[in-house]
Structures are given as structure tokens and as C-alpha cells.
């Protein structure tokens, strides 16, 4: 073993010798710039892979979105436009049926759907994951086991989960959830599909279908949150808890007065990122309700903003690309405003 290590040592020394010889030669012949690179150049080399990929897939599309939004009647097949507009595409999108306001014959719009998902699923999932993280932190046996279980949704394909959800929430008394509700004497709920007595498809109520989406969102988003909360709780100095224990602080007060304030920066981070994540809800709708974005026979839509953007992209009518760009910029503006408001609030609420 030591012989091999000696050999490695010798080889490394030989390379070092060669290296310094080459360097000396180049420097002596006024070609030192070939080996002595300035720091900014070295930095650029290391940054290049990330920069190139980001430019192609993030920066260029962003710039392009702002470019597309000022085109009128852009035809992507022959790359022609009929004119320019500043707010035209935004106005078209905002006036579109079911984008901002529900049209006369439906009950919901994509904006309302998205806001419902964000405003209901984010607080619920944060609260639940906090409680689960605290509970996990206080048990010793099986902690790793539960941690793994709770983390599974994070590494599972969301379409697959969606299909399982659709199956679990099957209407009638054959679905798993309905059967479990039956144990408590609750009548089966028509979650994702519904028929009337004559066998005609009429679709479930809006809130029944929406709650499936919300439950999916809460459950899937909890994995990452639990992990973040658990690690930050474990990072809190044990002495704070010992000090509180000596003072006879009740568990609930320890949670609200010590744990929550000490992990408040993490909670803030999670609120922002999960709000952004919830704004981008898309796969769950596709996986549970399919391309139509609504249960069969329903008089409403469950599409979200991102779903709507994809609708425009998939539809090659001239001008639709500009409308997709406009709606994505509206989404961006929404998220930006909410984030800025949260940052203002957090200045007062987040400690140190």
C-alpha cells in the first residue's frame, strides 16, 4: 500500500517539476500570459457552464417574452407581425373569458383558481409542516423513518401522484377516501366526477373538485417544508430549551415564544418560495383532471394561470404567443408585488 502511495507521490512531484519548467520557459520567452491568467478570467471560466445554460433557458426567454408582448398578430410559422402595441396584449388577456373574471356561464376564472390555491394551500401546508417538524424533533425512535416517509412526495413524479390522487378520490363508495369517510358515517362525496340519477354526467361541485387540488398541493409541498423546518429547529441551541425548562415554561409557550421566533427567517423564506410555487400550480390539474382542466360535465374550469399560458402556447393561432407572454408577465408582476409586500412585513416580524 505504501509503495503505491510512494509511486503516486513521485508521479505528482514529476508533474510539478514539468509544470514549473514549462512555466519558467514561457515566462522567460515573454509568453507568461499563457499561464498567468488574471483572476477575472479564471472566474469567468468557472462561471461559464452555469452562465451559458442560464442564458439559453432563462435570460433569453425572459427577454423574448418582453419582446413578444409588444407584437401584434405575431405568426410564429412565417415569423411575421402585423404591428406593435404596448398594452394591447395585456388588455386582450385581461378581457379574455375566464382569465380575470368568470364569464357568465361558468363559476370560476383562472385567476380566482390560482388565488384560491395559493391563499388556502400555502398557510395550511406551512402550519401542518411546522407542527410535524416539531413533533418529529421531539421523538427519537423512528425519527429517520418518518422523515423519509414525509420526504417521499418530494422525490416522486407529480403526474404519478396526481393519477393516484384521482384514483383515491374516486366518486361513489369505491374510492379510498370515500370509504374512509364511510367509517365515520359520512356519505360518499362526489370529488372528481358525478352523475345524476339517469346516468348523465353532471360533474362534481366546484369546491369538491377544488379541495382535491388543495389537498394535493398541501401534501406535495409539505415534504420540503418539513425538511427545512426540522433542520432549522435542530440548529437551535439546546441551551435555550434548557433555560426555558428550568423556568417551567409550558410546551405551547416554548413553541410560540422560542421556536417560532428563532426559526422565523426560515419561515419567511418558506412562505415566499411556497407562494411562488403555488402560483405556478399546473401538473396537479393536468394529472387529476386531464387536458380539459375541469371534471367531465363541469360548468366551471379548474385551470390555473400557468395552465392558461400553456393553452396559448399549444394553440398556434397567430398572436397567441404574444398573449402567452402577456399572461406570464402578469403572473410575474403578481408574484413580484406579493413578495415585496411580504418583505416589508417581514422587516417587522422576522427577528435578527
Amino acid at each position, binding site marked *: 500500500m505504501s509503495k503505491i502511495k510512494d509511486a503516486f507521490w513521485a508521479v505528482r512531484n514529476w508533474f510539478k517539476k514539468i509544470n514549473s519548467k514549462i512555466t519558467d520557459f514561457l515566462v522567460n520567452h515573454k509568453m507568461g500570459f499563457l499561464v498567468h491568467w488574471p483572476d477575472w478570467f479564471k472566474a469567468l471560466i468557472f462561471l461559464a457552464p452555469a452562465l451559458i445554460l442560464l442564458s439559453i433557458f432563462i435570460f433569453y426567454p425572459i427577454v423574448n417574452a418582453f419582446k413578444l408582448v409588444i407584437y401584434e398578430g405575431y405568426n410564429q410559422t412565417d415569423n411575421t407581425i402585423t404591428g406593435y402595441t404596448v398594452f394591447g396584449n395585456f388588455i386582450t388577456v385581461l378581457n379574455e373569458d375566464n382569465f380575470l373574471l368568470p364569464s357568465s356561464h361558468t363559476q370560476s376564472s383562472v385567476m380566482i383558481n390560482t388565488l384560491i390555491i395559493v391563499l388556502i394551500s400555502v398557510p395550511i401546508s406551512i402550519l401542518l409542516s411546522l407542527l410535524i417538524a416539531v413533533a418529529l424533533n421531539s421523538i427519537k425512535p423512528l425519527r429517520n423513518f418518518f422523515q423519509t416517509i414525509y420526504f417521499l412526495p418530494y422525490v416522486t413524479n407529480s403526474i404519478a401522484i396526481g393519477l393516484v390522487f384521482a384514483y383515491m378520490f374516486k366518486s361513489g363508495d369505491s374510492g379510498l377516501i370515500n370509504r374512509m369517510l364511510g367509517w365515520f358515517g359520512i356519505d360518499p362525496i362526489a370529488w372528481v366526477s358525478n352523475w345524476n340519477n339517469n346516468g348523465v354526467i353532471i360533474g362534481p361541485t366546484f369546491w369538491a373538485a377544488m379541495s382535491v387540488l388543495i389537498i394535493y398541493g398541501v401534501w406535495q409541498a409539505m415534504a420540503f417544508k418539513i425538511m427545512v423546518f426540522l433542520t432549522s429547529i435542530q440548529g437551535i441551541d439546546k441551551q*435555550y430549551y434548557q433555560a426555558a425548562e428550568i423556568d417551567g415554561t409550558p410546551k405551547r409557550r416554548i413553541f410560540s415564544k422560542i421556536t417560532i421566533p428563532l426559526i422565523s427567517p426560515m419561515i419567511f423564506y418558506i412562505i415566499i418560495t411556497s407562494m411562488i410555487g403555488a402560483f405556478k400550480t399546473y401538473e396537479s390539474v393536468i394529472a387529476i383532471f386531464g387536458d380539459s382542466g375541469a371534471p367531465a360535465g363541469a360548468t366551471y374550469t379548474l385551470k390555473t394561470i400557468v395552465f392558461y399560458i400553456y393553452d396559448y402556447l399549444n394553440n398556434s393561432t397567430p398572436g397567441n404567443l404574444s398573449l402567452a407572454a402577456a399572461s406570464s408577465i402578469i403572473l410575474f408582476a403578481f408574484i413580484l408585488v406579493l413578495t415585496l409586500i411580504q418583505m416589508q412585513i417581514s422587516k417587522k416580524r422576522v427577528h435578527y
Partner: protein
Amino acid sequence: MEIRLEHLTKIFTDKSGIETTAVNDLDIVIESGKLIALLGPSGCGKSTTLFMIAGLHKPTEGKIFFGDDEVTKLAPEKRGIGLVFQNYALYPHMTVRQNIMFPLENLRIKREDAIARMNEMAALVNIKELLDRKPAQLSGGQQQRVAIARALVKKPRVLLLDEPLSNLDARLRLQMREEIKRIQRETQITTIFVTHDQEEAMSISDQMVVLNFGVKQQVDAPQEMYNNPDNIFVAKFLGNPPINIFKGKVKNNTLYAGKTPIGPVEVQDGQYDVGVRPEDFRVDDKGFDVNITEIFHIGRDTLIHFDESGTDTRALVDSDSILPGQTKVKLSVKKGKIHLFDETSGLVVGHV
């Protein structure tokens, strides 16, 4: 409040089942209203003992009494103790005022009474003008004061301090140890503090408990322990510069170091470990000859090194008695200042 530890033992078992005895069969009686130092090198079990008294560690065996009450199985908050942690464990998100008020919020007392007590404590530790600051805005010494105020505000029966001065710089340390002594005198509360610094322990405590590997070595008043150590460990642990230990031989009631007769002693003939503190040597024409190897003038005293039967030995003598460059001197040892220890057990045989 008298504190009594009876056969107190703490064994930690790690994941692989290896047992470590942190505290071994400790029997101590701590008098009411005294300031006691638990002293020992790191890993000697002094903090473990403190935490067992606090109730944060459960003893493996043995009993703890506060006065006549047995508290061994009592929860920390029911023991009536105040604990100051090594790094203070002040809640970083609360102001000084909130930190001191925190223990009171768990008690059922009126708000005015709580505020009155908080102000009383702030006055006791001289931090009245800092009440609205956060711990991060305080110096180490100020944080220490806040921590003491927080521990005392509940009017505990016992005050426990874990390495209270180890996080302070040298000057603050001197100041704070006088401060701790003053606070203890004013409140007359039984105080136990843990330290590895013998000088600190000796300067402020009424009684010292020296521990090594979880075993009690000696319990005594500081000066008493310094002058009459029970064993070689205590002798070596106390004092700076440390005590000189060299091999000695007793023959016909005379102690020899090598061939040099040191002085008359009245113990059985045989080999002993001889301990002499550097300051107990004095320059004496009737003494034994030594060859000085090095001289350090340190103001009031002069530290000389000489070789004593193969051991480098230090003597602290009057500066006037040694001339620069002097190579030989006659030394004798003050009466009662030679400590003889058994070679195998390390126990003291006599102070002569």
C-alpha cells in the same frame, strides 16, 4: 438552603453501548448561603454534577437533597433553581427586559409585581439603562449580568453558574468575579459555580470541591486546600506557577532529594513524591546548594529554575536576593511547606 449530594453517580451510554462514568459516587454537603466552586480539569464531571443539581440530567444513582426535601426525581422547574449557562443562553429575539421577565410570565404573579421584581434585579446587577437592548447589542460582561438577573428574578433557592467567566476577557473576568461575589453576598443565596480556573475558584469561593474523572478529590476552604492538599492531584491542580514535584527519600527522619538533604521530617523511611510550592523556597545561607539554570525577573519576585534530582524545579524568591547572572544559591524550604505524597496512591503522607 443546604444542598446534600449522596452517592451521586452519572453514567452516560453512547450509541454503541460504551459507558462513560462522568460522576462517580459523589458525597458532598454544601452549606446554606455559601458560594461554592466546583473545580476540576475539563471532562472531570463538574458540569454534569451541576446539571444533575439543576435537574437537566437524571442521575444514574444517588440522591440529591435541598434542605430536607429530596429533589432527585423532581422536574427542574419545581426545584427552585436559577441557572446561568456558559454562553448565557439569552433569547436573541427578546430585549433584556423581555428576557428577565420571561421566567416570571410562567408564574402566577401580578404584572406590577413582576415589573417591580424585574427592576429590582436590573438594579442589583447594574443594567438598568440596558433594558431595551437586544442581547446582540451587549458586551460579554453585560450579557453575563442579564443572565444572572434572569436566573435570580424567580427568587430561586439555589443559584447555579456554569463556567460563568470563561467567555469574558481577562479584565472583565476580574471585574465580574467580584461582581458575582457581591451579588451572592447581597442576596445570601446558596450559589454553586463550575470552573476549570483554579485562581478564579480560589479568589471568590467560600468552599471548593475539586473533582477529577468524576471522583471527589477534596472539599475545603480555598486557602486550607492550597496549604494542605489531600493528594498529589489537588496539589498539582492548585497554584500558579505549579507546585514542584520531585522524587525524595526519607532516611533516619531526614528528607533527601538525590543526595541533598532538604530537612528533617518525621515519617517512615522510604521513597516519596515530594511537593514544594515555588514560593515556599527562600534564600537561606544554611540551606542546600542549587545550580541556577535560568533566571526570570518578574517585578516583585524572581523566578529561578534549577535542577533537582533530574526534575526542572522552580523557585519564586525575593528579587533582591538574586543578582543577575548568579549561578549558585543556597535555598531552604519554609516550615510546614514540604508535602510528602505516597508514590503509588498519591495520597498525602504529611506536611512538614
